[in-house]
């Protein structure tokens, strides 16, 4: 839920963010250039010895800290990074083997290369070096500022004063350091790692530590987009899975969006008695965790589940069989393509409409009363007010969430996985060869590839594809819809 909520409202900034991004980088480099060029001898010395400039201004503790930091980076490079980074271009060459040791009379592992460790720790080293580079540049800028302050006879902070600024003027740094560290380790590094793995042959046949994997260039992308071998037909499956993902995202978003608006209009109508009570009943559906509700529904609709029994009791099963729509003794709600596709969208309506109802209700509560009032005075009837005021307002306010919902549905793992993982078995051999099923979304396919088949290379490629699809839709949609955020409105 965290992700979904934060998703609202950021997309509009994407376009401007790109130019702002490069602008900020540009000015950072300009500052550094100026500092390095115009600084005195000690500033220039700080380019080599980070603590030099502080020492000159008698900031001894700071000088010590920067020196220790520099030593730390150097030691890290010598003792840690050097084990992995040089092998980065091959990802290791020494295959793991067991060798009989004559002295101990035992089988022992040789000093083998672990491709994944090489990849991960090289990446980690790159990140550390990148941070060190930024610190080095920032340090030079700071030292130059100190020089300027000293030249103008300004007060130079003691260490205690410096520490205090971290609770005052630089409080944001104190606040941001830990969360940013968390994001770097658990979001940025994983994303980079994913991108790297997409260019390797890391799969079931190349699993470290027993065997090595290596760079294969764009091979994985080629085989996903239709080229590659004859036996594993990833291209065939990818087109179908992508197609269904988009169809699913389109229909599930539209049905729940309009369903939610209709339901909220129904509940908020003047004719409704006890609307709070009704709303509560609908919200119960989404308050129950999805792994309970969806697994339950999946079992209700299973081939020998309760719904099938009821259908056969009332004769619906026989009717459908006579009509030639099914050939089995049950209705394959979640086990045959076509049926499953439709049922998934229906079940999603069940689970998605109350959410949208809540949102639409919230928006309707903020409906501009003055507009309604003036419309009434102008003699507009109910239908006209609804048609020309309520509806446009509702659409305008909730349209951005339509886009984020669409992207969220592309990645709607829970609904598809919990509903179909145990019920749906594909009969299409070409799909099965690439471990895909007709009802899979890209993300569930990716999940199964990694969990059950250890095909990490293809999963990584699919992951990148999902990102591209999401990013494209977000960019296109927000360019049309959002007018930009008004952060300063309240300030």
């Amino acid at each position, binding site marked *: 839920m965290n992700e979904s909520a934060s998703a609202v409202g950021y997309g509009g900034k994407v376009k401007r963010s*790109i130019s702002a991004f490069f602008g900020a980088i540009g000015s950072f480099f300009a500052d550094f250039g100026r500092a390095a060029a115009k600084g005195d001898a000690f500033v220039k010395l700080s380019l080599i010895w980070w603590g030099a400039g502080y020492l000159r201004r008698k900031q001894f503790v700071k000088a010590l800290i920067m020196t220790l930091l520099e030593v730390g980076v150097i030691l890290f490079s010598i003792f840690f990074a050097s084990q992995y980074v040089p092998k980065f271009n091959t990802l290791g060459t020494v295959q793991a083997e067991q060798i009989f040791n004559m002295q101990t009379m035992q089988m022992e592992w040789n000093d083998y290369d672990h491709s994944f460790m090489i990849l991960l720790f090289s990446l980690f080293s790159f990140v550390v070096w990148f941070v060190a580079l930024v610190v080095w540049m920032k340090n030079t800028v700071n030292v130059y500022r100190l020089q300027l302050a000293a030249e103008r006879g300004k007060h130079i902070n003691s260490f205690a004063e410096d520490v205090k600024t971290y609770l005052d003027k630089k409080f944001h740094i104190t606040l941001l350091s830990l*969360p940013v560290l968390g994001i770097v380790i658990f979001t940025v590094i*994983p994303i980079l790692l994913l991108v790297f793995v997409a260019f390797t042959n890391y799969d079931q046949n190349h699993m470290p530590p027993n065997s090595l994997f290596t760079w294969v260039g764009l091979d994985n992308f080629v085989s996903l987009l239709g080229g590659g071998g004859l036996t594993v037909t990833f291209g065939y499956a990818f087109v179908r899975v992508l197609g269904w993902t988009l169809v699913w995202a389109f229909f599930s978003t539209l049905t729940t969006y309009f369903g939610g608006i209709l339901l909220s209009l129904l509940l908020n109508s003047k004719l409704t008695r006890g609307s709070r009570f009704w709303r509560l009943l609908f919200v119960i559906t989404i308050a129950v965790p999805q*792994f309970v509700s969806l697994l339950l529904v999946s079992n209700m609709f299973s081939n020998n589940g*309760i719904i099938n029994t009821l259908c056969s009791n009332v004769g619906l099963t026989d009717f459908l069989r006579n009509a030639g729509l099914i050939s089995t003794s049950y209705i394959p709600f979640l086990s045959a393509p076509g049926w499953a596709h439709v049922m998934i969208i229906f079940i999603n309506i069940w689970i998605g409409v109350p959410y949208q109802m809540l949102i639409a209700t919230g928006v309707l509560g903020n409906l501009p009363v003055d507009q309604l009032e003036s419309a009434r005075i102008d003699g507009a009837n109910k239908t006209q007010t609804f048609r020309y005021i309520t509806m446009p307002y509702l659409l305008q306010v909730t349209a951005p969430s339509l886009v984020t919902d669409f992207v969220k549905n592309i990645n709607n793992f829970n609904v598809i996985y919990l509903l179909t993982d145990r019920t749906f078995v594909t009969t299409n051999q070409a799909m099965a060869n690439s471990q895909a099923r007709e009802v899979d979304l890209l993300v569930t396919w990716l*999940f199964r590839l990694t969990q059950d088949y250890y095909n990490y290379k293809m999963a990584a490629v699919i992951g990148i594809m999902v990102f591209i699809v999401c990013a494209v839709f977000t960019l296109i949609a927000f360019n049309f819809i959002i007018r930009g955020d008004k952060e300063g409105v309240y300030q």
Partner: protein
Amino acid sequence: MMKATTVNAAPPDVSRTLSRAKSRKTGRMIGHNVIIAVLAVVWLIPIIWLVCTAFSAQSGMNTSTFFPAEWSVTHFVKLFQPDTVNQFPRWFMNTLIIACATCVISTCFVLMVAYATSFGKFKSRKLLMNIAVILNLFPGVLTMIATYFILRTFGLTNSHVGLILVYSASSGLGYLICKGFFDTVPRALCEAARLDGCNEARIFWNIIIPTSKPIIVYTVINSFLTPWMDFVYAKMILNAGISEYYTVAVGLYNMLEKSLINSYFTIFCCGGVLVSVPISILFFIMQKFYVEGITAGAVKG
């Protein structure tokens, strides 16, 4: 009708029209509410079935009738008698511990990031927020595999620490709703405090935090619920099949394994009911903020 007859001024035909209109209105009202009631029943069928099945005397799925043939509470008792498959009390404690830890860490992270981005006036603020925009475009499931690799390298898979890290480490990215709230806090409040000699840390701690109770409640509940609602991450991280480590979600999911479903389906329903009750209550509390959060971003757009 009473009113119409007592007010003599109204001619009889007008009063008849009035009463007809009124009864038509009543009719429409009843119809309207009946439609809602029917919808509500449709929406609640699976939930009713869940509760009914939980009280069934039969262990497997009741496939012949909607309501169980025999009612009993034995399976609730069985739920609390751990066996090789069912370790519900254990799972519940696991999830509770993970949820509490996640809750503390992510609430802190979210508040910290939100305050820094809303009140801070530093140069790279926009830059950081823009990077967050781009990072948020990567859906969670994608980073999941790579996160799994990293955790495995450090031996943190099949451990609760790993799961807590996964849930809370990146939580700073979900700061937007909280920031939206902070943006509405009057800046004069901070200015006054600053004139009184407060530093930023004290403004944050003594002024902003106490005035932001609603959004803190939202953040706390939201991050507390994440581990209870989540299924994917838990399934991926706790993949060694050690039942004691499971969270409720993974544990209950495993009960529906093909070989187990016939003896554990009712127990699954019992577990589902017991988990849903506290979560539903928290969800109802959060509901209001949830709507505000979703629409806040949009209204400002």
